[in-house]
């Protein structure tokens, strides 16, 4: 148990020996432990130390320990002095200190030799950004093309579809999303009924709350809120999963076995989401209407029965079908963007994170844009 000095005691003593320096004419006296842990306070002062013109000697005889960081500071100081045409030398260094000084002198960078990554100028940056974005779009188009082609081929030979994976994905993306989708749709129904109800009551048209909640939920809000939740929940998971597989070369491994990543990783997810999202929208419809009903009864004294009767009169089946009809389109957007971004991951963990962010932003953006386009088309068609 007792070899030399007990290291604990040695460590305690170390902390006490602060590195200090003192100028004595042309001699700079250094003492204490010039090691990286202790240097923080001394380094700045040492850097500011002005040396007199002419030869200068660094006396290291008081230095108890010197590591490469400490040696580098001394070397730097000497280098700066020599640059002014004056001499700088070391005396009194222990053999260890002399060796480490020699080591840093021999291997350290000269002035201005530190290699920093080349910065990009403003115009270069704009150019790179633009071409990067353009590349991204063309790549995405190519991906959509390939996806369509492979999907059609699979549809002709459905036995080749990996149904087992489809079912796993269905459970993940659909079943496990039920609680959050249901809760948010319910709350949305409550909010709409509350906000609209106050207004309707003033005009004595409380019963029209069913029109308001029914139309807005079924036609617009339920599909939209569901798509946004699924984009954040499932789209990001697709990117992260495929992206990580890309980093660990699992995607390449699939490729070498003659299995295209699209067939194995993308298609099952796409199919699963196309099935799951409309079902989630139906659930969101139910929960949203229920939320509206609860709020109507509490605030407007519209009973469940009268709400339902009015709902059936006021809302055409088309509104319900339009809402559900949008869901598969949203599903295609989310699954294809999620998988595309996953496959675009290159090399590093950082890339996975960046692509996941991009995926969620793009999914939600595209879902809202497409929803707006649907609105225009339906209003032109007069549905």
């Amino acid at each position, binding site marked *: 148990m007792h070899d030399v000095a007990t290291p604990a005691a040695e460590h305690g003593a170390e902390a006490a020996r602060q590195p200090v320096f003192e100028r004595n004419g042309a001699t700079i006296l250094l003492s204490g432990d010039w090691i*990286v*842990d202790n*240097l923080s306070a001394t380094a700045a002062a040492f850097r500011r130390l002005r040396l007199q013109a002419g030869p200068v000697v660094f006396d290291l005889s008081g230095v108890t320990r010197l590591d490469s*960081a400490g040696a*580098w500071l001394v070397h730097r100081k000497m280098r700066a002095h020599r640059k002014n045409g004056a001499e700088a030398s070391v005396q009194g260094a222990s053999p260890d200190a002399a060796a480490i000084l020699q080591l840093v002198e021999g291997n*350290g960078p000269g002035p201005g030799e530190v290699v920093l990554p080349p910065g990009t100028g403003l115009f270069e940056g704009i150019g790179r950004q633009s071409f990067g974005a353009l590349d991204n779009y063309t790549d995405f188009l190519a991906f959509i093309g390939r996806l369509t082609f492979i999907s059609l081929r699979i549809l002709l030979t459905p036995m080749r579809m990996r149904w087992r994976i489809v079912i796993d994905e269905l459970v993940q993306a659909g079943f496990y999303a039920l609680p959050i989708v249901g809760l948010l749709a319910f709350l949305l129904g409550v909010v709409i009924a509350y906000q609209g109800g106050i207004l309707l009551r003033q005009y004595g048209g409380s019963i029209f709350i069913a029109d308001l909640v029914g139309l807005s939920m079924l036609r617009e809000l339920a599909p939209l809120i569901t798509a946004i939740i699924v984009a954040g929940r499932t789209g990001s998971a697709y990117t992260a999963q495929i992206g990580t597989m890309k980093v660990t070369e699992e995607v390449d491994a699939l490729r070498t076995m003659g299995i295209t990543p699209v067939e194995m990783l993308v298609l099952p997810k796409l199919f699963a989401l196309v099935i799951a999202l409309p079902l989630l929208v139906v659930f969101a419809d139910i929960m949203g209407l229920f939320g509206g009903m609860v709020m109507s009864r509490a605030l407007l004294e519209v009973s469940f029965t009268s709400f339902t009767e009015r709902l059936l009169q006021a809302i055409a089946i088309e509104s319900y079908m339009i809402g559900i009809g949008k869901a598969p389109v949203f599903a295609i957007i989310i699954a294809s963007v999620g998988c595309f971004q996953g496959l675009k991951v290159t090399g590093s*963990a950082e890339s996975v994170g960046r692509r996941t962010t991009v995926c969620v932003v793009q999914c939600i953006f595209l879902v809202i844009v497409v929803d707006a386009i649907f609105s225009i088309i339906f209003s032109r068609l007069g549905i």
Partner: protein
Amino acid sequence: MVVGRETIVRARGIVTRFGDTTVHDGIDVDVYRGEVLAIVGGSGSGKSTLMREIVMLHPPTEGRIEVFGEPVTEMSEFDCLPLRRRIGVMFQYGALFSSMTVLENIGFPLREHTDLDSDVIDEIAQLKLVLAGLEPKVAARMPSELSGGMRKRVAMARAIALDPEMIFLDEPSSGLDPVSADALDSLILKLKELLGLTIVMVTHDMDSLWRVSDRVVLLGDARILGQGSMQDLKASDDAAVQRFFGGQRGRGAAHDSDGGGR
């Protein structure tokens, strides 16, 4: 045994279990200052786990580990922090931070733990890069642009950034071509000599065992099968030790080493 060697790691009665699997069943290991200790053993013999336990990443199920005389197995995470700074670790796959350039990776511990000026830190990082045997221009690259060998060298440079007293290397030569592996062996010897480092490495590589290790600990069957210098182990009568070092690979490496060394 040399008298008066300072023991900087003292592990006693280490027992490690993962569920029903017993990885270590009462292992005692010492690391002496200034030596290169190699931990060897078959796959799954708990080499890396033992290393992770000494560097305080994973507590053993039972047993006591002292690092620099401090009982780390009984200390809180917070109390371990000053000790961690005196230890450098090179992970098997480098574990470089992928969002930083090579220079930033090496300078990271300095930036976190000292108030040195940014340009001084960059210069010291560049110095460590050169010490690790890399070309200066590698500094500006991202980790994803490096080959496996370069990545290990950058990881090594980062491990010695704070001038630790002891470094741990997890499979330093695995996945490297013979030339790079030889160069890495030379680097380990050079760092030991120049910086006075104590080095603990986990390895499979017979050539590097003969070339760089002062002492070898052979793990197997959840205990230590043998320890000593390579010559001692080679001469051992123990069947398990012979199985490990007496195979074709072991003999080949020993032969090369004998030819060059004697």
